[in-house]
């Protein structure tokens, strides 16, 4: 082999190519390492081991119930054929690594494109399997979930409803006519009523003579409403009146009255009791909406929680700003480089800010809930803490990027630290501070809509609750409110920004 003088890897391989190949077959990557391609060897070793490990893990996950790896393997590839593909890729990777080891021990810079592509493809196919990505499911189930989705997208039927009432007017009918006089019940003046004429008659006979035809008059019902006619027999058996096989419906006129002929139907149950007659009731029933539309409990709750959410975002921004301003001064290098003491403070504060900022607001919410219990206060605490860290950094960077000239000029007049900050630093940082504050307010209101999902108050709490109860319409109301609020917020914050800067 010819060493190439002007490449960085001039040193010859420790082993001949063939040995590198064999070693690589024993442990992928080992051949490269002994060919002095340390980094490449380690990378390939790690890549192969982790890909193989992941594959084994997925096989055992898919075929959990089988005993023994062979059984698991057959079961797993039957359930998830994609696992075969990964297996093939692993084998290909294994072979390519070995071949590459051979080449690497032979020439200093072999073309390993195919190898790296194989490694990448293997990991992406693994990712596809681990992520349980199934586009077919999206298409198949997507169609079925459309009605549910519609309820989320258009939930307003649940927001406002009209209270309904069942109006019933009834009249007694004596069967057959036995000359009995029934008392007419006393009704309130405007209660729905029903009268029949005559008040007695005979049943229809099956396949024979039609029963008595009654002239029925109803009044005091709600106007222009569909009304059903029902019979209630002597044993309180209810059945809806049909004529010629169809249910009979009648619609009230503008005054809430109607007129209708009703033929007494047939019945199998003998009508003769001890008295020789029975009393049936003829009823007219209608479902009528009464009164004004009523705002649903869900809508009220959503509004309440939305207000809570907006204020949650506002309060946490407020506290965040108030507390982060002094902190940001202590966290800016240019103001804190006077001596080792201030430099230490600067370092400590910077470190704390970075740590706090790297923890998500939702995690802070969980911590705050442990400290102060469920509710908006926990949410405010969480968002405040995160705001302080985030704003503290942004503000201090704004302070660090100010023009130092005016600061020197003010110092040169004999001003002290506070005066210098007040006259030379503050005027320069107002525009960036305003814009960062609006930006944070925006984030906080957005965050406060979801912080409720872990129990930190606000509308997120309702949303997650309703989703768990599969009450998609109510969830839809909450989502609408969130969307509307965020849209308004977007508009308002961009307006303010434009005005100020």
């Amino acid at each position, binding site marked *: 082999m010819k060493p190439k003088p002007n490449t960085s890897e001039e040193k010859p391989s420790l082993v001949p190519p063939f040995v590198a190949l064999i070693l690589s077959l024993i442990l992928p990557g080992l051949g490269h390492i002994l060919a002095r391609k340390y980094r490449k060897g380690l990378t390939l070793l790690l890549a192969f081991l982790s890909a193989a490990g992941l594959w084994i893990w997925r096989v055992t996950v898919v075929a959990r119930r089988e005993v023994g790896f062979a059984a698991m393997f057959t079961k797993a590839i039957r359930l998830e054929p994609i696992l075969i593909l990964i297996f093939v890729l692993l084998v290909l990777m294994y072979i390519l690594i070995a071949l590459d080891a051979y080449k690497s021990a032979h020439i200093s810079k072999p073309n390993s494109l195919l190898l790296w592509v194989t490694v990448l493809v293997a990991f992406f196919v693994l990712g596809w399997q681990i992520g349980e990505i199934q586009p077919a499911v999206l298409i198949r189930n997507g169609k079925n979930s459309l009605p549910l989705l519609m309820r989320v997208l258009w939930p307003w039927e649940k927001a406002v409803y009209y209270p309904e009432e069942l109006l019933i007017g009834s009249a007694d009918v004596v069967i057959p006519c036995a000359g009995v006089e029934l008392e007419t019940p006393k009704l309130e003046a405007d209660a729905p009523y029903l009268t029949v004429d005559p008040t007695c008659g005979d049943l229809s006979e099956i396949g024979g003579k039609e029963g008595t035809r009654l002239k029925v008059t109803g009044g005091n019902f709600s106007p222009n409403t569909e009304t059903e006619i029902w019979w209630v027999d002597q044993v309180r058996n209810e059945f809806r009146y049909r004529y010629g096989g169809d249910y009979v419906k009648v619609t009230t006129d503008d005054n809430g009255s109607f007129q209708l002929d009703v033929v007494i139907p047939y019945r199998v149950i003998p009508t003769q009791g001890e008295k020789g007659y029975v009393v049936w009731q003829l009823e007219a029933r209608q479902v009528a909406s009464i009164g004004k539309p009523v705002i649903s409990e869900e809508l009220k709750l959503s509004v309440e929680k939305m207000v809570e959410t907006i204020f949650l975002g506002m309060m946490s921004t407020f506290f965040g700003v108030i507390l982060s301003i002094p902190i940001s001064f202590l966290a800016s290098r240019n103001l804190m480089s006077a001596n080792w003491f201030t430099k230490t403070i600067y370092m400590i504060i910077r470190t704390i800010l970075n740590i706090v900022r790297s923890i998500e607001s939702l995690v802070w919410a969980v911590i705050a809930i442990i400290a102060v219990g469920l509710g908006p206060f926990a949410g405010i605490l969480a968002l405040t803490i995160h705001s302080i860290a985030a704003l503290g950094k942004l503000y201090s960077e704004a302070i660090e990027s100010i023009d130092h*000239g005016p600061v020197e000029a003010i110092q*040169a007049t004999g001003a002290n630290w506070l005066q210098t900050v007040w006259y030379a630093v503050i005027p320069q940082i107002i525009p960036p501070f305003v814009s960062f504050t609006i930006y944070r307010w925006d984030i906080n209101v957005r965050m406060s809509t979801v912080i409720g999902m872990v129990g930190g108050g606000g509308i997120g709490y309702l949303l997650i609750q309703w989703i768990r109860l599969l009450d998609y319409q109510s969830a839809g109301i909450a989502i609408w409110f969130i969307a509307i609020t965020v849209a308004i917020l977007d508009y308002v914050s961009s307006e303010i920004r434009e005005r100020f800067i």
Partner: protein
Amino acid sequence: MLEIRNLTKIYDDGTVALRDVSFDIPDGEFLVIIGLSGSGKSTLLRCINRLIDPTEGQIIWNGIDIAKLEGQDLRNVRRKIGMVFQQFNLVKRSSVLMNVMAGRLGYAPTWRSITGRFDEADKQRAINAMKRMGITDQANKRADELSGGQQQRVGIARALMQEPEIILADEPVASLDPVLAHSILQHLESLNKDDGMTILCSLHYLDLVQRYSTSVIGLREGRVVYQGNKQQIMRMTDAEFKTIYGEEAERMGGITGEIAEQDITAAGEEIEL
């Protein structure tokens, strides 16, 4: 009398900006400091009011060593030394009036100055200072709305508020055109002649140096390489100028163009340290 004794400044990165600089400035002098870019002019001026801490040496003024002062003592000295900058260093988003008032901060109690309540005497001083510099009409404008010449006059008005005994001017006219440069330097000259203030000013143009200075210091690589009084300055030749500015330096400033044609063999009063 301001006495600079063995002043040395070595920056944190090891750059030696001043090497053992010593000279005296009698009261009422208009001292101009010349020297190539990077020769240490700014460093020297900033050491005097301690915007930069010198590494070694003394700056003795009225019997006290400014180089050793800390805290309130330092601020009390600073307020007697005004400073004017090349980039004006105004607070751009503040009004002209606020920029001028800021010159009084060294005298005002902290709390009162932060709440913006300056006393009547201070307000009168501001009015006078602005009137003297001809910027009264601009009092309520934002500083960044002013032209360069106007901004520099605000800078001088700010220094005037300190009722200083010394004014340090670090290339006060380098960002201005020649006409404005003369106007600004005339203001400084008036402060020097009429009010008896000592002026320490760094300049680049020989014609301006000859026109305004009463004595000159030349710096090169942190060393004093030239010292001259008014007569010597008026006789200063290109050769001397080049000793200070280096062989490759071109003389700037059209007014003294005829001097540039002169022979460069004549040697002046230069001193080599």
